[in-house]
């Protein structure tokens, strides 16, 4: 009976578990509402988006690359619109779109390559293309007849098991087929291959998401030196891991800045778990309130932020209050290090709304019990801050430390030009 008492409230884990049992539409819809209700947020969005797109690729019906791209785009933009303040969603969608394009062209390329190769091989036997175009001409080899069959059956919607059989044969056997089929009517064999390749690609992407923090942490001992004073502003999971990893190698001091006012009645000091872990490695920790931060900056060697998103111009979306810390660091010429995995790197400039920043619940700063204040004041609690590129010195991605000019090449490696221009928020597919 023990697990019966599990929580009822929906969460990302529950959603992932329910994926199998729910229809695709229902899963997307329930994720949209999880996003709207902020029950899935931050880094979780990336994982959730990847899961959704995996389902879209695996379960929706599509017959060619364009259809698949459409499906992914429409599902992606629905998610992105549900959480306009989570740019990571758009990044994942673009990554998957890029992946599909890549696989598709790769297929074509392989086909083309193989086609030309085989063509040259076969040239001796048959004139290029022409015979195949005519269709059911008696084939020179039994293999070729086998290969023709799936194409012919494509319109007839071969049952999947059959389909597997043929395509598997197609892949493992001679790649002769490619040459014979025109690209425009994507044949089931390649559709299926594409499907499995894209799925594989998305799974790799998901691995990348889950490993990103560890990979970033592995660069920690390069950045943090013995006897450093490191200021961590509201350490995110990524920053926590980074610090703990560094603590296993180095002796240093961590100043944990926290802008959240301590709630009356709160029993735990903030970041108690992190402090405990760091202390167990012999690293000293000091908790700071943000307003005391300025006094410590001269003593600090470096400042670390966890990014919510990194824009192509080098600007960074961070927790609210970080801007002041970054300003102060710049004033005292202390390096500002931003931790952000590659998937947080957005191939676009921040919108005006990002710079204005999302507003949160004012109750974080003014208690509901404080009636007169609420009536008299207009309270804006920003959830995030935008750090302009000039305030950031080093970006540490899971590929290693980068400088600003280098971001462009990472972007170019990970996104396709076609997808960068595609705006997720406005498309109403």
């Amino acid at each position, binding site marked *: 009976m023990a697990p019966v008492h599990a929580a009822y409230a929906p969460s990302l884990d529950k959603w992932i578990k329910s994926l199998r049992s729910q229809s695709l539409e*229902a899963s997307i819809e329930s994720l949209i*509402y999880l996003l709207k209700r902020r029950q899935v947020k931050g880094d979780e969005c990336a994982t959730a988006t990847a899961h959704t797109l995996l389902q879209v690729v695996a379960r929706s019906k599509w017959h060619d690359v364009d259809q698949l791209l459409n499906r992914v785009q429409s599902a992606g933009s629905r998610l992105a619109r549900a959480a*306009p303040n989570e740019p990571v969603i758009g990044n994942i969608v673009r990554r998957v779109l890029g992946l599909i394009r890549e696989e598709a062209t790769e297929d074509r390329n392989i086909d083309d390559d193989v086609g030309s190769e085989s063509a040259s091989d076969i040239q001796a036997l048959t004139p290029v293309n022409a015979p195949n175009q005519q269709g059911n001409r008696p084939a020179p080899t039994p293999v070729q007849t086998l290969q023709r069959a799936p194409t012919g059956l494509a319109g007839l919607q071969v049952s999947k098991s059959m389909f597997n059989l043929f395509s598997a044969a197609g892949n493992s056997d001679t790649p002769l087929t490619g040459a014979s089929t025109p690209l425009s009517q994507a044949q089931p064999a390649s559709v299926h291959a594409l499907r499995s390749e894209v799925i594989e690609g998305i799974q790799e992407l998901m691995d990348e998401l889950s490993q990103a923090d560890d990979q970033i942490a592995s660069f920690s001992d390069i950045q943090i030196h013995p006897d450093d004073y490191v200021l961590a502003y509201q350490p995110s999971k990524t920053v926590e891991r980074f610090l703990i990893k560094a603590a296993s190698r180095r002796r240093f001091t961590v100043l944990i800045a926290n802008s959240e006012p301590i709630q*009356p009645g709160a029993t735990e000091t903030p970041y108690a778990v992190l402090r405990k872990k760091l202390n167990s490695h012999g690293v000293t920790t000091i908790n700071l309130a943000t307003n005391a931060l300025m006094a410590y900056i001269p003593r600090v060697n470096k400042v670390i932020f966890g990014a919510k998103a990194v824009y192509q111009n080098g600007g960074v979306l961070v927790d609210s209050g970080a801007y002041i810390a970054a300003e102060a660091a710049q004033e005292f010429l202390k390096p500002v290090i931003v931790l952000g995995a590659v998937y947080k790197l957005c191939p676009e400039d921040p919108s005006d709304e990002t710079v204005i920043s999302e507003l949160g619940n004012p109750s974080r700063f003014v208690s509901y019990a404080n009636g007169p204040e609420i009536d008299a004041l207009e309270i804006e*609690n920003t959830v995030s801050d935008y750090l302009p590129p000039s305030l950031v010195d080093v970006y540490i991605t899971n590929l290693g430390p980068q400088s600003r000019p280098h971001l462009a090449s990472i972007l170019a490696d990970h996104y396709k030009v076609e997808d960068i221009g595609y705006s997720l928020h406005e498309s109403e597919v």
Partner: protein
Amino acid sequence: MSKQAGKGGAGKGKKPAKAGTDEKREDVLQAVIIADYFQDRFKPFTLDKPRCLLPLVNVPVIEYTLEFLASNGVQDVFIYCGAHSEDIEDYIYASTRWSPSSAISPFSSLEFIRVSDATSVGDFLRDLDKRGVIAGDFLLVHGDLVANIQLDAALAKHRARREANRDACMTVVLRSVGDEPHRAAKARGITPVFIIDPDSGRCLQYDEAHPLMSDRRTVIDPSVFDHGSFEVRSDLIDCGIDICTPEVLALWSESFDYELPRKNFLHGVLKDWELNGKFIYTEIFEDGYAARASNLQMYDCISKDILQRWAIPFVPDSNLMHDQSYRKVSGNCYFETGVKVERGAKVSHSAVGAKTMIKTGSSVTSSVLGRRCRIGQNVTIKDSYIFDDAIIEDGAYINHSILAGSVVIGANTQVPEGSLLSYNVHIDSEIQLPSKPPARIAVTTDSGDEAEPDVSLVGKGGKGANYEVHVDDSDSDSEDEGDRDPAVLQNGLIYSMEGLNISTLSVSTFASEDDYESDDDMGHTGYLHSGDSAGRERLSSFTSDDASKPDAFHGDAVTGLVDALRADDNEDFDSAKLEFMGLRLANNASDTEMRRAIAVAFTRRAAEFLTPEHGSLEPSKAAEKALKDKNGAIKFITDVGVGGDDVRQQAEFALAVQKGLVSVRGLESGRAGALLAAMLQQLYSLDVLEEDGILAWWADKRASEGETMNKVKEKCRVLVEWLENADEEESDEDDDE
């Protein structure tokens, strides 16, 4: 009773994994939404639409409730509808998100239950008990709830308590708001008072306080003191979320006359704790948002809170409805797509629905505008709520009002604070709507007929007539009887004690006159401290299940006595006395209530003589006439009104007379004081009251509580001094002898 079998069954089968297998069934969280309130507070808007479909920041209220349930992982939902039940059902079935047949509904089942002869929330819950559809713990919420709190922790605690003790049957979810509460807490007319054990969270007693109570006092049951430590808290918002076990429904069934979940049920169950042995706990949230749009003032507050993002994620730019497209723009505004704001128009702190047009020179602050509204030039809109398709022509001025769908306001018309204009009302141009009391205008009447346009109100080209709020209508119910007085406070959009006198006129003379002493404070606190039986008796009469009983007694008794006093014939007062005693027995009224009724009757009669219709008598004459006109009246006062020679009882009666005078309508305090002095003097000379009694009253602190009381009392100084001197002289004489 008829059951509308929802299409919920179909939904259940669809998602087997969600609904779970049979043994997992118990693990599913169920919720019951009460979507009818048997109240008039939202009239005239609720003439056309059920309350839970009224737009709150352009989203029907019930959407918030359903979303709250979904965010807490509720699987099965039962909705009880009363008035306009078809509308609610149609709405839900048409919704892509909530319809039970929809594949994307977060609930595995959603059923409507109709109870044809229900007159109160209690009837719904008794019906639910009969159906036996509730398997385990369930949430009981109202269809006007806006909350973003997460109940997981509270549910886990509730479960743990229930396993430890089967009688822990209910957890009431509350939100603490502190000493200086936010406007949402201030707006409520009724302040719930919870007496709670701070260690376990167990609720020991529940009462309600409201500003119309004269004493603002809650009487604590002596058994509470046996409990050890306890806290009395009136700083809590009761958002109407209850975590219940099925036993709660059984309790409802046992007490067939309980009507309201709080005033009757919670109060009653706690009071009879020794009988039923049930424990009720509270769960107090220190953060998060929870409130009920239970009246227009709360509607106003919650709308503002949503605009100021207190209720995240319930903010316009979350776009919880499928077809919404709000974006935050500068000036703390939320615009949907297609909003046109001309250059020169100012919009701030507002939400504006799609395709609404605001022309140049207009200013909109802290307001909510629906879709497709047309706002003309130089219009001022402040703190107002305007539903879809409204047309406001040039130069109009709208302040703190609610304008329902398709309302048309003519050019240069003034809509002052507190106005409520229902659907399709048209106001001609150049009209100044009344501000005291604010107008309530509807095009339909209670019976659903078209109202005859009231040209003097809405102008020549206008549509609609003044809508009178009838509290004692046959379709209005139970809740009104119980808390008629505070309901008056909650009726309008503006919370005002000032407006109260005006609105009570239409309610009933008795209710309003007795407001000031409805929950009398005739000195029983003293009894309570000594813990004797009188205190208990007083307590039980005040707290009895049928809350209307004491009031009924008071009203009937006073009317009876005044009629007897007015009667022209020279009949003996004995018949009136007999009638009075009969009433007393029938209602099991306490001594205090009798004393109060008698005092009120005589003072009212005496005050009548002061009025021009009765000859504008001098106070002394009036007092004499009122007391002496009838044979036996004095004896009646001595026997029943004072009820003994005890000094304390005499003082109580004098106090009752004083209070009676203070509460007489239209009697200014100077005159009241003169009359009081005259009456006391008469009573003294008739040997009803003795010196000691009057002096004890003079010394009593309660006699000088409040400004009017004090003023009235001061007028008696001469009398009291004379009495004191007489006393001294007497004693001097005694000494001389």
